[in-house]
């Protein structure tokens, strides 16, 4: 199975998981990205994701095909939600099935990392303080490209 999806509806992770079952596979690794209540010192109230659908779908499918080719996994799937999201909602789900666990973990990690840097999807955070901002955009626009916050963020803190 290889499938990339975009949806405005809540992601049914159990349904996606069931579709990964394959008798040739010894396991499955998954990642869920959740909407969290803070980012860079600000309390977050809710989120809005905007997507350039045509390009996100083609690029998303490309990432999944790369994961299968690079790591030799059997199945790879991903779905990203857009529109208005609330705290705790699943924003993105990745699932990978494989004969053995090692490649499943690696391919799953590859997919979410590439999704975050390559898909034309934008996130607007609405803060408890009343303001809002497009993540990764506003500060660089205000302070120019030499600013410290423009450096690539570490995966451990990039979160949803």
């Amino acid at each position: 199975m290889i499938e990339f999806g975009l949806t405005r509806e809540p992601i049914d992770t159990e349904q996606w998981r069931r579709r990964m079952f394959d008798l040739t596979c010894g396991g499955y690794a998954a990642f869920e990205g959740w909407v969290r209540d803070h980012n860079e010192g600000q309390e977050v109230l809710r989120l809005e994701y905007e997507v350039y659908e045509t390009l996100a779908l083609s690029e998303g499918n490309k990432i999944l095909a790369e994961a299968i080719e690079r790591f030799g996994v059997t199945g790879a799937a991903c779905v990203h939600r857009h529109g208005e999201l609330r705290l705790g909602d699943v924003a993105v789900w990745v699932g990978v099935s494989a004969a053995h666990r090692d490649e499943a973990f690696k391919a799953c990690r590859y997919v979410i990392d590439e999704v975050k840097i390559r898909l034309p999807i934008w996130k607007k955070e609405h803060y408890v303080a009343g303001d809002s901002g497009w993540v990764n955009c506003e500060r660089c626009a205000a302070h120019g490209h030499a600013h410290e916050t423009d450096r690539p963020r570490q995966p451990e803190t990039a979160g949803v």
Partner: protein
Amino acid sequence: MKKIHVRYFALFRDQVGRDEETIETEASDPAGLYAELQARHDLGLGADRLKVAVNDEFTSWDRSLSDGDRIVFIPPVAGG
């Protein structure tokens, strides 16, 4: 002069105040067109922060533009 269809997303949609427009331009490539739009709409992001897509595919800043092309300037993304 050629007509180019521009779509705006996220920060750019907010800054421009609309989600698309058709531009008549002499610009030969996306870099030239972005410079025009940046001046016209006072866009804060430099081209070095962006990617560009023409007709729904990522492309280079110096590819030639043709009449009727659809272009999207892609501000820094934040999926996941």
